[in-house]
């Protein structure tokens, strides 16, 4: 999902999924997040932030292939 708005005080964010639906998401496990970030959400909690730069030979190999 993509972060739309962050409520830092309550540790929540409004996020939008692939279909455009919006959900309230718990962000304590991936803070800090800001609007526009992509996060992986399970059961209303963001458990990972998608990281394009995370160094890895294997996924960068997939990325190289897909031109991401």
């Amino acid at each position, binding site marked *: 999902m993509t972060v739309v708005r962050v409520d830092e005080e309550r540790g929540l964010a409004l996020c939008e999924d692939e279909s455009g639906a919006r959900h309230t998401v*718990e962000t304590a*496990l991936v803070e800090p997040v800001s609007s526009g970030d992509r996060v992986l959400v399970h059961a*209303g*909690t963001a458990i990972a932030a*998608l990281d394009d730069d995370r160094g890895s030979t294997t996924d960068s190999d*997939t990325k190289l*292939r897909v031109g991401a």
Partner: protein
Amino acid sequence: MKYVDEYRDADLGQALSGEILSLVEPGRHYKFMEVCGGHTHSIYKYGVDDLLPANVELVHGPGCPVCVIPMGRVDDGIALAHQEGVIFTCFGDMMRVPGSEGSLLEANAAGADIRMVYSPLDALRIAKQNPDREVVFFAIGFETTAPSTALTLKRARADGVRNFSVMCSHVTIVPPLRALLESPDLRLDGFVGPGHVSTVVGARPFEFIPADYGKPIVVAGFEPLDILHAITMILRQLNEGRCEVENQYSRVVPYEGNQRALEVMAEVFELRPHFEWRGLGFISHSGLKLSEAYADLDAEKRFSVPGVRVADPKACQCGEVLKGVIKPWECKVFGTACTPERPIGTCMVSSEGACAAYYNYGRFAREREVV
């Protein structure tokens, strides 16, 4: 959409398919288990299995959170839901899982106040809105969903919500994998490792698979190219005589997992001595319960639950499906008496269940086209 479209490119899929063909040894049969139900669905949704040579077989593992919940546990939930003043909340999939005398959905129709929620946070919100009722959340899932329950319990404690409790049926991924590897009926050549569980626990907990059992495992993403790429990585390990944990999904999965999630889980949960899995029986240290510090929010302590063990229906072979011993179409009731509309077993209920994947994507036939 970034991170999605590029991982579904058909030409690249064909190229990876060709690469897999060049990596397999003719005459050798390869059997790989994809642990996670999310992978099973991607495989059939995108026809990934049709891009594999005939001698590469994918078997489906126990990583479907709804599928592994035993019938007795559903009965406990229904008994709790019928108690005076209780609002029982659970995920949508769980509502249709048959217990020995019907599902939560049927209990709802019979008058129990059962509500579907999208997250435990929603259940907590219902508790705040209904201070004169007791709100119970039926928590299920692997380490992917357990942090969400843990954070909600911390929030309930911080906000002083007293009418909220959790019936904890969370499970952990490593013990069933060890149980499968110990089982003599299954000879596997490698694993496609669970992507989303690994975002929380990391790839490190799977090091026992190469170290103790000599099998490669590649933690993989859920797009078709992720899965095809993971299969090439397993084949390369086999061809090069290597055997290790590799992480194909590092755009999401850090090798060490999410430390904050692990810390919050360690604070809120502790391991049960044993937990019953559908089809796999009792597995030691495989389930979570609330820790002493959160015992007052434990629904099983606040209310009396029957806790009776119920045998699976005779006709249903979910156990064998979950262990990867049989394919869904080999079950006697698959697609006839057991369908997503009227499921007998859990694997036909859940959106991550192998039987539902086969049924929904039309995999009734035994034969596969050979590429």
